[in-house]
């Protein structure tokens, strides 16, 4: 295998890996948006929250896995509580109220983060089991944790596919994203679906933050960039479509990666150019239904 081909393939791996991680965040966002009709600007903050929780628990327990096991249930509880206390009263209101609420949540969560953890940058150690690198080329090794990250995201994506394809909840989610009123009139408890979807979305975003913490480090405002890119993914994939979010995430990951290498001058723009191109071609996104939402 020639050198340039090898490096090209490594870049593909980089792009896929970035995309898969993005998928965890974007899938929750697209579910909440598509099914509940809530524009959740605070989604990036849940990503940040996950990272900080894992940072705190890793320091207490000394082990990333334990930290994740403790933090995920916490994230689910937080999702349920937020849904019940803040979001439920706003379902019948205009989108603007939700935007205001979730924007406020960003500020509140940032402030809580600042009070609890300060404004310093923190690192989370890679677990000892995965703290080695796989040699690829003479001057390049690939961190094993990054490979694990991709595999883990694939497993989660598979689990979500199974959940949505084969479970009762999944059926309700699929139906809910198509026609909310019909689902309700058929006697499915939509309030229960909302609760589950919101908690799932929060947990996924937090989980992404948790497993990303060792490679992304933990710092104030880390959720904001993820939020914007996640919205791009949702728009590209089509609102409410998990399949779309998956494909959109991979596309964004690859576009971002190769944009940085081949057109470094425009690297900040590549994903937005991609979004514009997709929207010109399919105004509702790759898997969006025209006229829906």
């Amino acid at each position, binding site marked *: 295998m020639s*050198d*340039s081909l090898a*490096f090209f393939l*490594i*870049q593909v791996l*980089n*792009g896929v*890996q*970035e995309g898969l991680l993005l998928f965890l965040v974007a899938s929750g966002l697209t579910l909440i948006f598509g099914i509940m009709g809530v524009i959740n600007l605070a989604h990036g903050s849940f990503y940040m929250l996950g990272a900080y929780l894992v940072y705190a628990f890793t320091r207490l327990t000394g082990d990333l896995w334990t930290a994740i096991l403790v933090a995920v249930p916490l994230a689910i509880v937080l999702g349920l509580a937020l849904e019940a206390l803040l979001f439920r009263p706003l379902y019948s209101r205009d989108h603007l109220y939700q935007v205001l609420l979730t924007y406020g949540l960003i500020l509140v969560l*940032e402030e809580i983060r*600042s009070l609890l953890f*300060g*404004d*310093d*940058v*923190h*690192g989370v*150690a*890679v677990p000892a089991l995965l703290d080695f*690198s796989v*040699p690829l*080329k*003479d*001057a*390049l*090794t*690939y*961190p094993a*944790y*990054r490979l694990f990250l991709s595999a883990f995201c694939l497993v989660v994506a598979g689990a979500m596919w199974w959940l949505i394809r084969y479970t009762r909840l999944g059926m309700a989610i699929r139906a809910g994203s198509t026609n909310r009123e019909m689902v309700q009139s058929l006697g499915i408890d939509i309030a229960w679906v909302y609760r589950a979807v919101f908690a799932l979305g929060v947990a996924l975003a937090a989980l992404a933050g948790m497993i990303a913490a060792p*490679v*992304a*480090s933990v*710092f*104030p*405002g*880390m959720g904001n*960039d993820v939020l914007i890119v996640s919205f791009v993914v949702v728009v590209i994939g089509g609102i409410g479509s998990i399949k779309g979010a998956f494909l959109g995430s991979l596309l964004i990951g690859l576009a*971002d*990666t*190769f944009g*940085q*290498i081949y057109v*470094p*001058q425009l*690297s*900040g723009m590549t994903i937005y150019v991609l979004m514009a191109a997709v929207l010109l071609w399919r105004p509702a996104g790759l898997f969006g239904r025209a006229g829906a939402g």
Partner: protein
Amino acid sequence: MTNSTRKATRRRVLAGMAAAGAAAVMDFVPTRFAIGQQAKIRLGLMLPYTGTYAALGKNIDDALRLAIHEKGGKLGGRDIEYITLDDESDPAKGSDNANKLVARDKVDFMIGTVHSGVVMAMVKVARDTNTMLVIPNGGVGAATGALCAPNIFRTSFSNWQPAYAMGKVAADAGHKRAVVISWDYAAGKESTDAFTEAFMKGGGKTEKGLFLPFPGVEFQPLLTEIAALKPDVVYAFFAGGGAVKFVKDYAAAGLKTAIPLVGPGFLTDGTLEAQGEAAQGLETTLHYADDLKFAKDKAFRAAFKKATGRDADVYAVQGYDTGTLLISGLGAVKGDVKARDALVSAMEKTVFDSPRGRFTLSNAHNPVQDFYLRKVQGTENRYVRIAVKALADPAIGCKMSA
């Protein structure tokens, strides 16, 4: 209904008149030689209190207040009112925020900021409104170059300075081929260009510049590209959270042992605890190091630690020196900010012992200072040697002469 509306309106008008009257009276209070000198000096601190540069902003703020507090908490005999504003390191909001400080808060001095793009916005507002500006970090060249002005001072460095020093060090070490990498913004471009300038002068060549959008931290593709190019040396300009991640990723990609990584000191300043093992042995250039032998430095580090519980770093030093510069300038005019020419001239001539060494300003109002080569050992940037002595920014395009 109508009646109550009218009442409320009348009341509001009265209140408005009272406020306007008070404001009018305030305007006539003279600031110099007034009995008791009531009016406070208004310092507008526009710094990043959130985001990737939050820790930097906090150290600047704390050290500035420490310097003034140590000298009695007053400037030229007048009390101080601090007005703080989070600039979010967002250049798009820079002009609005700076204008708020000038027009709404009527500050006597703007102090800020870290991000070079936001500094540019502040420089424009300072020039348009002739407001005093002291820059405690952002090294954008134009601030003390093409856009220099009598009312604009900088207590930190220009992006050119540490980068030029590192270019010389890298060339002296015998490296021939370099790759430079940074965020795609003014500071990154200026820094990498200055490195290349000195590196070429020493017989080297920069083969490729890699840039990613600020404040992105997904470095993996760029690290792969570096491995493909196999240069002799990599020069990286990152700070804060980005610096932590870059240094760790560089080591995790296996590049640290293969290709030396160098940079301006921001790469390893205030970040070493988080960078851990990955940063050990890295060499950087800066106007400060953690184990300088100056008495002033020892005293400052102890005082900062006592006041904040944190260790001082270069950002704290710059904040501290900003405070000292204000004390000196306003002391000379006895707190009269309206005596602009005397104030500017006093600030220009200010010479003092900074924790970093002797502090003097160039004609363009940028520090002329020694640049130290430092090496990371544990959680400290240890002094190795002076890389370039009394290095002055070329101040290209500055028409001002003292």
